C-alpha cells in the first residue's frame, strides 16, 4: 500500500495552516512526523482520518485519486487513527469501547462471552493482557486507556495506523510494549505514522522522519543519517544552543514551608521548603502524589493535616483565591481540563485570576486589562498576537503560554508549575525555562513538578522525589544522575 499527499492545503477560518504538504506513507514502514506545536501535525492527521476536508491538493492511494468525505470513508479503507485526546466512553466497559458499534451477536442479542474473548485476544496481541475487558474504561489509568484506544484501532485489521503523540501518557515499559507492537504491525505490512515531538522515540522507532514547520514539509530524513540536534534545528528554524539556562543556586530567605502535610489516602507527611530565588524540582511516577501536594498547598483541595507557612507564618488557604492573594500561583498539569476556558479569548483567559484586582466599583478597567494582555503577549511571544482570538484556535505551546501569562499577571512570589512543558514543543520549552530562570532573579520561588527526568534535573537547583505519597529523597540537581532519581522514585537502591 502506498498513500501519497500532494500539495495539501487546509484553512481554518481565514488562516491557512497547511500550505501545500507532500507526504508519502508506505505499507511496512514507520514514518515519523516531527514538528513543533502549531506546525500543523494535528491538522495533517485530521486530513488523513477524513475528519476535515481538504481545501486544495489531492490524496492518492496506490496512485489512484482518493476522496475522503468523512471519517467513515477513511475507516472503511482501513485507516485508523489514535488521537492524542482520548475518546473512550468512560462509563462503558473496555469491551464495549473497543467493539463500539460492532458487538458480536447471537440470535439478535449481544454475545458477551464472545465479545470479551475477542477483546481479551486483542489486548493480548498488543501486549496488555493485564487489562480486564469487563472493567469500565473510566477506571483505568490514562496510559491504560491509551492502550485500549489502540486495541480499538486494531479491532478491524488496519492498513494504516496513525498514532498522535502516544508517548504523552506512556512511559517506561509501556512504551517498550508499544514499540514492540509497532514493529509487529510493520512486519504485517501496515503503514504506520508516528507523530511526536519526542525525538529520542522518533529516532528509535521510525524508518524515516518528515519534519514539518509552519504548515510546510521542511525535510524528510533517515534516522541513521541525522541527529536530534539537526531535527530540532529544522523544527525550530534556528539552532538551540542551550536548552537549560546555567544556574548558580543562590537561595534567599525561606518563603514557603510545608510541614507534615497529609491528605488521607493520597499523600502522607510531606515537608519541604522553598526559598526565594530557587527552582526546586519535584519528581515522581504517576500516582506518587506530586500534583495532589501542589493542589493542597494552593488551597484547591483540603489537606487532612499539616500546615503551610508563608514568610514563617502559618497560613490557611481555604480557596485558591486566598492563595493567589498571598502570592502563590499554580499552573495545573492539564491545561484543557483545568487551565483554560477554550471557547473564550486570549484576553479573558489571561485575566481570569486578576479580573477582580483591575476592577473599580465592580467595573473592569478594560484599558488596563488590554494593556496587561498586550504586555504578556509580547513578553511571552504568544502567537498569533491577537487578544481576541479564542484560545481553542491556538497551538498547544501557545495555549500553555496563555496559562503562564494568567499566573504571571498575579505577580506570584511562589510559582508552582505542574508539568508545564507537557505537549509543548522544544522552542517553547526553552522559552519557558528561560522565563522561570528570569523570575528567580526577581526573587520568585519556583516548584517545578515534572515526570521528564532530563527536565527535572536540567532546569532546577535541587530535586524532591516522591514515591507512593511520601517524600523519599532530596538531591542536588548538579550532584545526581537520572538513574539515581529514578531509583528513588521506584524504591530500589541505585
Amino acid at each position: 500500500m502506498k498513500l501519497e499527499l500532494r500539495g495539501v492545503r487546509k484553512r481554518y477560518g481565514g488562516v491557512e495552516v497547511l500550505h501545500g504538504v507532500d507526504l508519502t506513507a508506505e505499507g511496512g514502514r514507520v514514518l515519523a512526523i516531527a514538528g513543533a506545536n502549531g506546525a500543523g501535525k494535528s491538522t495533517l492527521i485530521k486530513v488523513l482520518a477524513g475528519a476535515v476536508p481538504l481545501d486544495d491538493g489531492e490524496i492518492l492511494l496506490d496512485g489512484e485519486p482518493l476522496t475522503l468525505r468523512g471519517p467513515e470513508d477513511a475507516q472503511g479503507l482501513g485507516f485508523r487513527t489514535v488521537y492524542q485526546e482520548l475518546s473512550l466512553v468512560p462509563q462503558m466497559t473496555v469491551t464495549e469501547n473497543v467493539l463500539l458499534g460492532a458487538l458480536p451477536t447471537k440470535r439478535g442479542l449481544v454475545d458477551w462471552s464472545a465479545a470479551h474473548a475477542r477483546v481479551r485476544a486483542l489486548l493480548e496481541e498488543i501486549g496488555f493482557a493485564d487489562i480486564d475487558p469487563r472493567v469500565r474504561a473510566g477506571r483505568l489509568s490514562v496510559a491504560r486507556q491509551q492502550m485500549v484506544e489502540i486495541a480499538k484501532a486494531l479491532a478491524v485489521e488496519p492498513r494504516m495506523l496513525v498514532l498522535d503523540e502516544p508517548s504523552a501518557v506512556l512511559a517506561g515499559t509501556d512504551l517498550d510494549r508499544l514499540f514492540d507492537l509497532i514493529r509487529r504491525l510493520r512486519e504485517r505490512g501496515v503503514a504506520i505514522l508516528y507523530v511526536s515531538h519526542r525525538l529520542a522515540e522518533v529516532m528509535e522507532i521510525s524508518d524515516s522522519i518528515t519534519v514539518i514547520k509552519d504548515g510546510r514539509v521542511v525535510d524528510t530524513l533517515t534516522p541513521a543519517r541525522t541527529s536530534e540536534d539537526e531535527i530540532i534545528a529544522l523544527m525550530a528554524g534556528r539552532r538551540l544552543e542551550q536548552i537549560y539556562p546555567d544556574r548558580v543556586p543562590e537561595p534567599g530567605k525561606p518563603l514557603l514551608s510545608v510541614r507534615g502535610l497529609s491528605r488521607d489516602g493520597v499523600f502522607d507527611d510531606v515537608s519541604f521548603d522553598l526559598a526565594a530565588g530557587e527552582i526546586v524540582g519535584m519528581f515522581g511516577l504517576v500516582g506518587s502524589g506530586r500534583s495532589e501536594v501542589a493542589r493542597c498547598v494552593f488551597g484547591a483541595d483540603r489537606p487532612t493535616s499539616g500546615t503551610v507557612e508563608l514568610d514563617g507564618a502559618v497560613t490557611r488557604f481555604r480557596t485558591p483565591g486566598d492563595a493567589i492573594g498571598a502570592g502563590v500561583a499554580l499552573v495545573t498539569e492539564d491545561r484543557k481540563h483545568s487551565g483554560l476556558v477554550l471557547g473564550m479569548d486570549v484576553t479573558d483567559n489571561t485575566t481570569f485570576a486578576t479580573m477582580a484586582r483591575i476592577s473599580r466599583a465592580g467595573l473592569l478597567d478594560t484599558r488596563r486589562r488590554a494593556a496587561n494582555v498586550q504586555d504578556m503577549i509580547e513578553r511571552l511571544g504568544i502567537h498569533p498576537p491577537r487578544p481576541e482570538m479564542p484560545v481553542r484556535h491556538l497551538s498547544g505551546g501557545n495555549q500553555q503560554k496563555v496559562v503562564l501569562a494568567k499566573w504571571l499577571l498575579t505577580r506570584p512570589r511562589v510559582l508552582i508549575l505542574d508539568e508545564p512543558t507537557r505537549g509543548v514543543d522544544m522552542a517553547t520549552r526553552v522559552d519557558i525555562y528561560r522565563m522561570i530562570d528570569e523570575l528567580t532573579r526577581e526573587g520568585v520561588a519556583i516548584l517545578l513538578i515534572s515526570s521528564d527526568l532530563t527536565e527535572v534535573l536540567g532546569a532546577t537547583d535541587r530535586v524532591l522525589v516522591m514515591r507512593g505519597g511520601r517524600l523519599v529523597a532530596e538531591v542536588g540537581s548538579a550532584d545526581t544522575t537520572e538513574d539515581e532519581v529514578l531509583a528513588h522514585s521506584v524504591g530500589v537502591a541505585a
Partner: protein
Amino acid sequence: MTEQQTSAVLDTVSGEAAGVTAPASARWRAAVPSPTVLVLIGAAVAIVVVAGVTNDSFLTEGNMTNLLRQMVSTGLLALGMLLVILTGGIDLSVGSVVALTGIMSAGLVSGLPLPLAILVAIVVGVLCGTVNGVMVARFSLAPFVVTLASMTTFRGLTYVYSKTPITPTSPDFLTLGSQNVGPIPIAAIITLVMFALGWVLINRTSAGRALLGIGGNREAVRLAGVKVQRHLVLAYALSGLCAAVAGVILASRVGIAQPSVGQGFELDAIAACVIGGASLSGGRGTIGGTLAGVVLLGLIDNLLSLYDVQSYWQQVLKGLIIAVAILVRRGERQNT
C-alpha cells in the same frame, strides 16, 4: 462571515502595527455585532419590509406600540435566562415566578403604597432565584431538576396566595404596564434599560466574565480564584429579579393578576437565547443576540396574529423557525 474572518478583516483594517493599535481595535470590535446578530437583524428587517408592504395595519403606530409591549415579558425573562444559561444552567421556574410576583404585587397594592408593593414583589422574585441558586451551587444539584421542582413549588405558592384572579385596586398600578412615552411603552423602556445593564454586567464586570468562564470551564476559573458558588447564586437571583419585573409589568398591563399566568414563558425565553446564539452547555451567548432573538420571536407572533393564522399553526411555525435558526448557527460554527 465567521467571527474569525470578521476579526481578521478588522485586523487588516486596523493596520500592520497590531501591537500598537490592538487595544483600540479590540474596543472597536466589541461594538460590532457578531455574525449571529447580523443574520437575525437581517431576518427581522426582511420580515418588517415584507410585512409593511403586504399588510396595511403592520406599520401603524398602534401596532408598533403593541409589538413592543408584547416583547416585554419574553425579553425580561430571556435576559435573566441568558445569565443562567451562560453558566451552563437553566431556569425553568421563571414562568411561576412571573405568576407569584404578579399576583402578590396586585394583592399588596390594596394595603401598601405602590412602590413598596412592587419592591416586596421584586424581593420575593430575587428570593425565589436565590433559592434556586443555592440549591444548584451549594448542593451541586442539576439546574434542570432544581428549577423543575421550584417551578411547581412557586406555582403552588401562587395559588396559596390567591386561588382567584386579583384585580388591583390602585389605578396608578396600571400605569406601569399601559402608559407610553410618546409611542414607546414605559415597560419597553424599562426592558431596554435592563438589557443595557445586562450588557455592562456581561462585558464590563469581572462577575460577568466569571459567569461565562464558569459555563466554559468551571474548574479552570475556580483555580483562578473565582468564587464559583457565589457567582452561580448571583445568576439565578438575577433571573428571579428579571422574572419579578416581568410579573409586575404583566399584571399591570393586563389589569388583572391571574394565578395561572406565565405557563410556558420559560420556553420562549430559552428559545430567544438559543436563537440569539447562546449555547445550552454554557460559556457562550450574547446580550445582542438574545435581544435579536426576542425581537424575531415577537415579530413572528405579531405577524401571524395580524394575518389571522390559527394559533396552532403559529406554534408549528415558531418551532420551525427555532430549528432553522439553530441549523444556521451550526453551519456557522463549523466554519470556524
